[in-house]
C-alpha cells in the first residue's frame, strides 16, 4: 500500500516543487517497487472502498488513527465540491500548512542560540552540520557547542562537522556538565562576535525524566547568560519513527520548550506521516526536513511539495 500510484498526477512538470527533486530521488526507488494501488480517483464519488484505501494509505505512512479520521472527514466534506483527488490533496495540505514557518535568525540578537534536542540517534548532530552550512550561506558566522558529553565520540563527531564547515567547536572532556559546556560556548561566541551558536545535546528518550531535567537545567544556565536564550529549540525527529513521534514532541515541548521541528531521514522509504499527526495534535512549526547524510541534505519544509511528493505517481 502506498501513497504513490494513488493518483495520476495532474500537475505539469514545471509545477513540481523543489522538495520532490531531492526527496524524489530517494522516493523514486521506492515507488518503482510498489505496485500502484491505482486510479481509485478515476471514479467521481468517494465510496467505501476508496475510503478504505485512503485510510490504509494514511496509516501505512504513520499517520495516527485519530488524525487519519480527521483527514477522512475532511475529504468526505470536500468531495462534494471538488473531485476526490483534489479533495484529498487539499485536505492534506490544509492540515500541514500551518506548520510552515521558517527559522529566522533575528537580527540584533547576537549570538542567536539554537539548542538541538531529541531522542537517541534521530540525527541531531548531523542536522547541526547541515544547518551550519545553511546559515553560513546566509552570511552568518556560526559556532558550535558540543553539549553531548555522554555518548562515545559525540564531540569528535561534531568536531568533524565543524571542520567540514570550517567553524569553531567548543568542547570539553567526556562527562563534563553539558550546561557548563554550553554556557562557556555562549560566552566564547559572544567574545568572538559569532552570529549564531548551535548547541548539540545528547540523545535522550522522553520518558527518562532525569535526562529531560538536564535539558531544563541547560535552559536555566543559559538563561543566566542571556535571558531569552535559547532563542530556538529544535526537536529532531527520526522520519522512520511511528506513533511515538507525538509523545516525543509533547514531552520535549513541555520540558525543553521546543520551538521548531526537524524531521530527518525522509530520503528513505518512510513517509513522514507523523507530520500530519503533529499538525493535528500540536502546533509546532516544521523548520526543515533531512533528506540524506551529506551537508546539503537539509531542506526547508514545503507543505505543497511534501504532499505532492507523497502523492506523485511516477
Amino acid at each position, binding site marked *: 500500500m502506498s501513497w504513490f500510484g494513488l493518483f495520476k498526477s495532474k500537475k505539469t512538470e514545471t509545477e513540481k516543487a523543489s522538495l520532490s527533486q531531492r526527496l524524489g530521488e530517494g522516493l523514486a526507488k521506492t515507488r518503482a517497487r510498489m505496485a500502484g494501488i491505482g486510479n481509485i480517483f478515476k471514479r467521481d464519488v468517494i465510496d467505501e472502498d476508496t475510503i478504505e484505501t485512503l485510510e490504509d494509505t494514511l496509516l501505512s505512512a504513520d499517520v495516527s488513527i485519530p488524525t487519519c479520521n480527521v483527514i477522512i472527514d475532511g475529504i468526505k466534506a470536500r468531495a462534494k465540491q471538488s473531485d476526490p483527488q483534489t479533495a484529498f490533496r487539499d485536505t492534506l495540505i490544509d492540515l500541514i500548512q500551518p506548520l510552515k514557518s521558517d527559522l529566522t535568525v533575528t537580527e540584533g540578537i547576537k549570538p542567536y542560540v539554537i539548542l538541538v534536542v531529541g531522542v537517541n*540517534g534521530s540525527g541531531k548532530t548531523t542536522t547541526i552540520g547541515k544547518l551550519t552550512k545553511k546559515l553560513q550561506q546566509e552570511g552568518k558566522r556560526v559556532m558550535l557547542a558540543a553539549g553531548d558529553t555522554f555518548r562515545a565520540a559525540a564531540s569528535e563527531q561534531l568536531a568533524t562537522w565543524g571542520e*567540514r564547515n570550517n567553524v569553531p567547536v567548543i568542547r570539553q572532556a567526556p562527562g563534563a556538565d553539558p550546561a557548563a559546556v554550553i554556557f562557556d560556548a555562549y560566552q566564547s561566541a559572544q567574545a568572538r562576535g559569532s552570529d549564531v551558536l548551535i548547541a548539540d545535546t545528547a540523545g535522550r528518550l522522553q*520518558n527518562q525524566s532525569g535526562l529531560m531535567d538536564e535539558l531544563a537545567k541547560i535552559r536555566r544556565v543559559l538563561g543566566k547568560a542571556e535571558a531569552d536564550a535559547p532563542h530556538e529549540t529544535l526537536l529532531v525527529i527520526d522520519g522512520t519513527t511511528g506513533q511515538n513521534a507525538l509523545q516525543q514532541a509533547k514531552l520535549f515541548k513541555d520540558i525543553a520548550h521546543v520551538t521548531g521541528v526537524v524531521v530527518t531521514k525522509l530520503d528513505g522509504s518512510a513517509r513522514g506521516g507523523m507530520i500530519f499527526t503533529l499538525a493535528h495534535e500540536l502546533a509546532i512549526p516544521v523548520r526543515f526536513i533531512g533528506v540524506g547524510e551529506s551537508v546539503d541534505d537539509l531542506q526547508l519544509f514545503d507543505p505543497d511539495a511534501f504532499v505532492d511528493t507523497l502523492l506523485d505517481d511516477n
Partner: protein
Amino acid sequence: MFGNLSDRLQSTFKNLSGQGRITETNIQATVREVRMALLEADVALPVVKQFTEQVRERALGAEVLSALSPAQAFIKVVNDALVDIMGGERREINLRAAPPVVILMAGLQGAGKTTTVGKLGRFLTGQHKKKVMVVSADVYRPAAIDQLETVATQAGLTFFPSNTSQKPVDIAKAAIAEAKRKLMDVVIVDTAGRLAIDDAMMDEIKALHAAINPTETLFVVDAMTGQDAANTAKAFSEALPLTGVVLSKADGDSRGGAALSVRMITGAPILFAGMGEKLDALEVFHPDRMASRILGMGDVVSLVEQVTRDVDMAKAEKLAKKVKKGKKFDLEDLRDQMLQMQSLGGVGSLMGKLPGMGQMAGQVDSAKGDKEVNRMVAIINSMTPQERKFPDIIKASRKKRIAKGSGVEIQDVNRLLKQHQQMAKMMKKMAGGGMAKMMQMMKGGMAGGMPPGMPPFR
C-alpha cells in the same frame, strides 16, 4: 494510550451476550479493537492484516471458558499468538562455529548498531567467557570508528583499528585474520547505517557478507520505528540472510510493534532488547512482555490469565449451568462469587485490571470495597442454609438475628438482600454467567462509583 484502548474494550465487552464459543459475530468488535491496538503500537499494516486474519481463523469456534467472555478469550488467543510468533524458535546467540565466530551488524542509520556491538561484546565476554574483538567497517559516518573504539574500551573488548580510507571488506578481512592470530573467539563487525533503498550501500553489505561469511547476521531495529519497519526488514532480509534481530531503545515508551513486523517479515528470531545507552543494558528478549506491550492491554491480558488460573472452574461452571437452566441465583452463589473475587486479589486489584477501570480504581476506595465484601460474606455466613437458598423467608426477626450474628446493622442486611435480588434478576437475564459476567455487570454501574444494586461504600 493504554487507557484509551482499555476503555474501548470495555464497550466491546458490554455488547456481549454470553456465548460459549468464539463466533464471527461475538468477536467482530474485538477484532477491530485488536487491529487498532496493533496499528497504534506501530505494527505494519500488512502484518496487522495477516496476523489478525490468522488469529481470527484459529480462534473461531474455540470454546470459551465460562469465566471469560468471548472477547476476552479472543484477546487471550491473540496474546498467545503474539508470544508464539515472537518467541518461537527462541535461541541463544550461535557460537558453534570454528573460531573466530564472526558476527555482522546491519541496520538503518542511528538504529543502535555501534552501541549494540559494545553491549554484545560485553555480554559474550561476561556471560560466555569469550575473547571478543570488534572492528568498524563504517567509513562514512564522522567519528564512527572513534565511537566504536571508545565503546570497546569501555566494554573491555579488543579493538581492531581501521580508517576511513579503507574498504569495508578489507577492514573486516584484516580483522578476522588478526583475530585468528590472536586466538580470539568472536569478531563483531560494525557497519555503517544504510537505507534499504540505497542500492549501492546494500550491495556493499552484501559483498561484505559474502567475503566474511558470518555465523550471525544481526539486524538492529529501533523499537520506535513505525510502518517503515516492514519495508526495511523486507529489503534487508532480501539482501542478507539475517539470522537474528536486536530490538534497540526498548527502554522508551514506544509500544514496539516493529518487533512483530520485523519478526514476521524476516522470520529471524529476536535475540536481544536494548534497554538503555549503557553497555550493560542488553536483555534477552522477553516475548511475553513484548506481547502485552504491543497489545497495550497488559491489564486485560493479565486479568484474563489470572482468571483462567485462579477461578475455581468447577464452581464457576456449576453456577453457569445453574443460571442457564433458569435456576435461581441464591445467596450461596453470591457468597461464592464474593469469595472468588477476594481470591483474585480483592476489589481494588480487580478494578485496576478491568478495562476502563484503571482510573476508577484510584477513586473508589478499594480498602473500603474489600471491607464491604467481607461484611457481605459475614452476613451470609450468619444465615442458615435454608435462608441462603430461599432468601424470601428472611423477615424482620431473622434479619435481626443475622445482623446480630454478623455484627452489622439491620440496614446492612436489607441492602445485601436487595442487592442480591437485583443480581439474581440480572443473572437470570444472562444466558451464560460466571465471574467475568458478574464483573462486567458490576462495572457497568460503576460510573456512579457503585455496582448496580450494591450498597454505597461507607
